[in-house]
């Protein structure tokens, strides 16, 4: 069993008549980069806010194995009357950190993030969206978190900064930090993703290790095949039929018998390698 840093059990949250999160059960392995995927309104941010203690779940529970958590929101907002250095001082005081250590961390992570520490004497409100995001990373990183939760890690950032942040994530993972990233930018997160979780209409529909999935499975598209559900299920429990097109996740070892089956049935199929985008679209 993996060494887990977080385990959730059937989390649920309702906003009036809208069931934002229905059945959110998942785990986050320690020291890995876990990506949380879902369409707009699938319940990603609500789930994150429950884990962070900003929302109270209506049902279910979760267990966090660390108290050292960093958090970077999608669009960070700070008290508009505070300067950057005051926010860092406040953070340091709140968590009982020495200012010398904070200053050292700021000098260490500032250049990595592409954040100009010369901005610190200015009010955070005056920063650009990108700099606010980078500053939010800096605020969390001075805490030396064991778990860093980021909502849309690349939003408001230019391509150079995106590359820097990606490299930072890999560096942090190397240092043993667990990262939990909620993102729409599949192409970007795919480059660094270890584990992924897909949420759909408030329910977790899939979780797996991306490399393991790529190594062991193929994504098969059968076109407009006239097959019964029992026939398809016999090959894979993970299949779907959308607009007459049957798609399924096929275990690589079944490739040869499956090709024989297609020959028998006089069917053609496209057998493709798995990537995060295709798997997301498969479950979305």
């Amino acid at each position, binding site marked *: 069993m993996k060494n887990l840093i977080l385990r959730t059990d059937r989390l649920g949250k309702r906003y009036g008549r809208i069931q934002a999160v229905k059945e959110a059960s998942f785990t986050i392995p320690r020291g890995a980069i876990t990506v949380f995927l879902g369409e707009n309104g699938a319940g990603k941010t609500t789930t994150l806010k429950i884990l*962070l203690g*900003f*929302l109270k779940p209506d049902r279910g529970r979760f267990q966090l194995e660390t108290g050292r*958590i960093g*958090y970077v929101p999608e*669009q960070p907002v700070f*008290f*508009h009357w505070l300067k950057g250095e005051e926010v860092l001082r406040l953070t340091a005081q*709140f968590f009982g950190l020495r200012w010398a250590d904070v200053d050292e961390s700021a000098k260490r992570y500032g250049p990595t993030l592409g954040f100009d520490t010369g901005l610190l004497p200015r009010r955070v409100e005056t920063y650009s969206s990108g700099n606010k995001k980078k500053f939010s990373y800096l605020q969390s990183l001075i*805490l030396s978190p064991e778990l860093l939760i980021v909502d849309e890690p690349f939003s408001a950032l230019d391509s150079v900064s995106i590359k820097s942040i990606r490299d930072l994530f890999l560096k942090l993972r190397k240092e043993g930090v667990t990262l939990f990233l909620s993102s729409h930018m599949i192409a970007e997160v795919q480059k660094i993703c270890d584990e992924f979780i897909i949420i759909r209409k408030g329910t977790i529909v899939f979780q797996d290790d991306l490399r393991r999935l790529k190594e062991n499975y193929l994504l098969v598209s059968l076109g407009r095949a006239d097959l019964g559900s029992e026939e398809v299920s016999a090959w894979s429990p993970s299949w779907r039929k959308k607009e007459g097109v049957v798609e399924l996740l096929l275990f690589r070892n079944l490739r040869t018998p499956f090709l024989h089956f297609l020959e028998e049935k006089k069917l053609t199929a496209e057998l493709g390698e798995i990537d995060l985008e295709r798997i997301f679209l498969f479950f979305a």
Partner: protein
Amino acid sequence: MPGCHRTRLALWLAVKKNRASRVNYLILAALPALCFYLWSKESFETAMKFFLFLFPYVFLFLSQDMIRDEVRSGALENVIFLGGEHKVYLSKKSFALNSLALGYVGVLFAGLLLFAWSTHRLQSVYLCQFLVGILVGIYYVHLAGLLSFYLGGGSNVLILVLVQALAFIGIMFSVSQRSGFIDALERGIFPDLISRLEILAMVACLPNVVIWKKLWLYSVEILILLAFLIGLQKIKIGGLELKKQ
């Protein structure tokens, strides 16, 4: 994190926030300016009387946008406030604002007292009025705090001032019908049920009347209302969630 540490941080944030507001400087400067004006034009006693009547408004004005605007701004969705710390911060905020206001009015009162003592005009009633004034101030902070769950942009304070102004105008325009009540207020004795109910309503809406007319007994009403407000605020903050911005 220890509770005293959180209180200190809430106080630090309250100081920073209020220092950033130019309007607050103006309001805070208005009180000593008015007292000084009355002192120079009338007498020290008049200045002291007005100071004791007006200083609870310092508490009230510092209580602008206590909850709603901060929640809506998204600033509480910060790494500092993880694990429900946003609730702790908001509950400590009332204490921080009370301390801040008390610090300011305390310095002004000490100055006035020093002058009164050095010129042999010191009266023990000043201290009683100041203590009741603090109670009124704390009552204002919690009343404005409760209103700020629903009203943003400083309207929690504005609405209280507006209600007081309307009540005052109402009384002024109905002096002939209310002469009994005005007399009772002047004497500090409320003989019938109607006038007692009227004074209870007035104390709830304009508690400064207790300081002005030295109606010490009615401090109990303010205390009861304050306890009710604190309880209600605790429940509201306990259930506060940071929903979508």
